[in-house]
């Protein structure tokens, strides 16, 4: 047998990109189930549609870029983008909304920058942000907690944006949205006048808890390190806590911040995206903390109820700079001041 001539190391772990991606997909399942329990079949329909679109766009662009399709499509990164988009988009998204988001995420945010590993921005967040700006009405039409549409009705809504029988109250504003547009009421008065807020908050808390569980699973598998998610939750919690202590009537509590909106989804599935976040451990701490801070600012003072897409894209921009200033000290450089940056 001809002897192979290769460079060391000659042994390799069984670690594979596709395996990492598969674990990430699996870890979203608890959140997916919780979301479907509270808001109906919309998310599932979205998810399947997004996956079909993501794989098709990925294959198409790979073909246009004259890259081998099978090895790249099997890395699972397109599916992760599809999952994240489907979970982040409202359950009442029509087909075209998902299509626009996935198209922009896969083709523009990912492949036009050179494909997996070369994109400066998180593709799912770019797709999401585009839709949020372009179609604000559709993007804020969140499902109501008493949504009782069956699969057929949801399917009909998905394609036609109407429901035969005209059931009322299938969509409503999210708790975060309600809390932002308080019409001069304090949070206490708001809760008293709007019984849906309490229910919405508890649904949101359950869903966030489910994402937290999935995220902790990934952490246990060492798919990513704790630095970015913990820093993000800590900085968001700290800001929320300080402001809530000062003016509890105007600012939601720490718990409401951490367990509503897309907090946990973002903390464990989006902030941890390795491609677009900072590199070193210290860098990841800064990156996560920056996202938490921006989220608090945009939630409290911005024009949009939830702010993860913008906060993450902004911090994606800052990642190279963070990398430059957070280079860890190498072995033997502990006493070296030049290297301390």
């Amino acid at each position, binding site marked *: 047998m001809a002897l*192979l001539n290769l460079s060391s190391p000659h042994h390799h772990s069984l670690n594979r990109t596709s395996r990492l991606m598969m674990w990430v997909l699996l870890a979203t399942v608890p959140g997916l189930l919780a979301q479907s329990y509270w808001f109906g079949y919309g998310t599932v329909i979205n998810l399947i549609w997004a996956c079909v679109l993501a794989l098709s766009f990925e294959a198409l662009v790979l073909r246009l870029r004259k890259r081998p399709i099978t090895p*790249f499509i099997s890395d699972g990164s397109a599916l992760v983008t599809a999952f994240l988009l489907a979970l982040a988009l409202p359950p009442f998204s029509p087909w075209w909304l998902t299509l626009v988001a996935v198209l922009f995420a896969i083709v523009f945010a990912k492949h036009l920058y050179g494909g997996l590993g070369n994109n400066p921005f998180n593709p799912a967040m770019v797709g999401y942000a585009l839709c949020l700006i372009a179609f604000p009405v559709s993007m804020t039409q969140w499902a109501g907690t008493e949504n009782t549409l069956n699969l057929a009705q949801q399917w009909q809504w998905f394609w036609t944006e109407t429901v035969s029988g005209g059931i009322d109250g299938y969509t409503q504003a999210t708790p975060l949205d309600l809390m932002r547009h308080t019409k001069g009421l304090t949070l206490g008065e708001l809760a008293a006048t709007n019984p849906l807020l309490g229910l919405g908050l508890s649904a949101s808390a359950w869903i966030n808890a489910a994402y937290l569980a999935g995220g902790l699973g990934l952490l246990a598998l060492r798919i990513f390190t704790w630095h970015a998610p913990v820093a993000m939750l800590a900085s968001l919690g700290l800001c929320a806590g300080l402001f809530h202590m000062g003016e509890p009537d105007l600012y939601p509590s720490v718990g409401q911040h951490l367990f509503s909106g897309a907090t946990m989804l973002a903390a464990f599935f989006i902030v941890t995206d390795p491609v677009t976040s900072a590199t070193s451990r210290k860098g990841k701490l800064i990156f996560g903390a920056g996202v938490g801070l921006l989220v608090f600012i945009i939630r409290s003072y911005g024009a949009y109820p939830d702010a993860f897409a913008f906060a993450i894209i902004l911090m994606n921009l800052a990642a190279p700079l963070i990398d430059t200033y957070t280079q860890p000290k190498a*072995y*033997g450089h*502990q006493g*070296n001041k030049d290297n301390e940056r």
Partner: protein
Amino acid sequence: MGRVWPFHGGVHPPENKLQSNQSGIVSMPVPQQLVLPLNQHIGAPAKCLLEVGTKVLKGQLIASAQGFVSANLHAPSSGTITVIDERTLPHPSALVGPCIVIDTDGQDQWIDHAGIDPLSVDQGELLQRIRSAGITGMGGAGFPSAVKLQAKTKINTLIINAAECEPYITADDRLIREYSEQIIAGVQIIRQLLDQPACIIGIEDNKTEAIAILSQALTGIDGIEVGVIPTKYPSGGEKQLIQILTGQQVPHGSIPADLGLVCHNVGTAKAIADAILLGQPLISRVTTVTGKAAAKAGNYQVLIGTQVSDLMAFAEVDLATTSRLVMGGPMMGFTLTDHQVSVIKSTNCILASSELELAPVADHHACIRCGQCEVVCPAELLPQQLFWFAKAEEFDKAQSHNLADCIECGACAWVCPSQIPLVQYYRFAKGRVKTLHAETQLAEHARLRFETREQRLIDEKLAKEEKRKARAVAAAAAQAAKRAANPDAEDPIAAALARVNQQKQASATCVTAEPPEDAYKALKTAAAITRTKLKKSSKALTDALASGHEQAESLQTTVDQLALKANAAKAALSAYETKLGLDPEHEKQLQLAAAQAGAVVRKLEKSLATAEDAAAIEAQIVIANTAHATANQALEAYQHKSTALQQQTQEP
């Protein structure tokens, strides 16, 4: 057992040690031929001392160390030196290098040798014996041991590296189990050399039997302890082992000795014991042969210079199923494509792997910057960033990210989910950095040389100037002295100056006088100018007529006037010429005749070079020369006459 510190990173590849550590070390019989590369160590190659045809005995010095960092080489068995030439080296480059080939005689006859009691001699003697035994580090790098034992700083802790963290390799494990007494004796000799530092033998906790045997052998011995460390690759890296056992990091750019530490391999300790106690130089070592293709995987006592092919045959390695032949371990070893290379002093393992045993050749995917490489990097680098920099050939950035601190352990590449051959990228970058650095130095050297030369030339010029001035001063002084001696004599310099001044005044008066106008020349010029003007105007007229310009008429008048003027100028010129008796036509004819005569002479001279009848041609040349001279004279006479005429006409 003292404290153990953690080090950053590390991986846990499958150990694969059981294949080779279950049986004792087997001595391989003397092979028919031994091939000994002259450079088996870091530093200068040894210099061959003997000639082809010389009979050598086992343990006889055949090549001697050249310089401080180098090592002696001894004949591993008795026989005859048959060839000294260039052979493929056991090196990743697979380059060739000088080797001594010994055909063994099977007698394995020792040269006279004797050990000594280390306590009966001083440190210098011990060091000399270790140096002359040609002992180099047996862990892999092959640094001459005597150099490391000659510490300039006080050594507080001696670390014996028995970690053997690479998968598959068990040579040190078996060595400890079977030669613990000799190893401890060697350690004691090293301690004696270094003024009795404390000693820790660092060993991974997966070698339970070796640890037990070593601890047993150490009972009652003070100053040496066994440091059992967690099994984690690459704990056996020198820097990592130092951190594990002492909690200290070797600063960048320093060596362990700067911290009062020195690190030696366990095999080196045994070789030192053999050299001192038995007087035997380093001529054999324990090498692991393992892998699925090796039927008799195990450890072998192999003579240095044994061909890998012979060792493989002895260990019953199936060449047909060997897909990758690695010298060293699976993490840092290098592949051999030729098994006609030698086992050298630092060869600790031959891994003959079957096709599916080691990682297959995989297409690597894109880096997703997952950071797992950073988690496992024992040098605390950012391997993913280094990868991007190496790929983009941004070597300055790679250097600022401490590329040079990469120990090439392969942990990053082992763990990489995209299966990127990261170490290869770093080796490439290191190589390029080295080349660029060398180029910069060359350029810098050239610049310095150029500048020095320029400066030298300037200096020489200045020195010359100085000398000249000095001479001038001396001459003036001599002159002054002369004048002082004879004050009445006329000063020659003053006289010369006066003469020069007179001449200057004379020429100045000449220049100031307005030269008489050259009427002939003026006429010629006027004729030429009017001719040119006429030509221009005529052309303008034709253009104007062609385009039907309204000013054509006025142009026509101008042309007519110019034609008249030109004719007048021409007439004036010819009248003047006639008056002077000049005839331009005649002058032209004379010039032509002179040129033709000259051409005839040149032609004849040319043909003279090749002609057979040289005399005839020479005669012709003489005639032609005469003709040429006559023509020239006629021309000169005419020109002289015309000049004289012109001057005459100008005089009045």
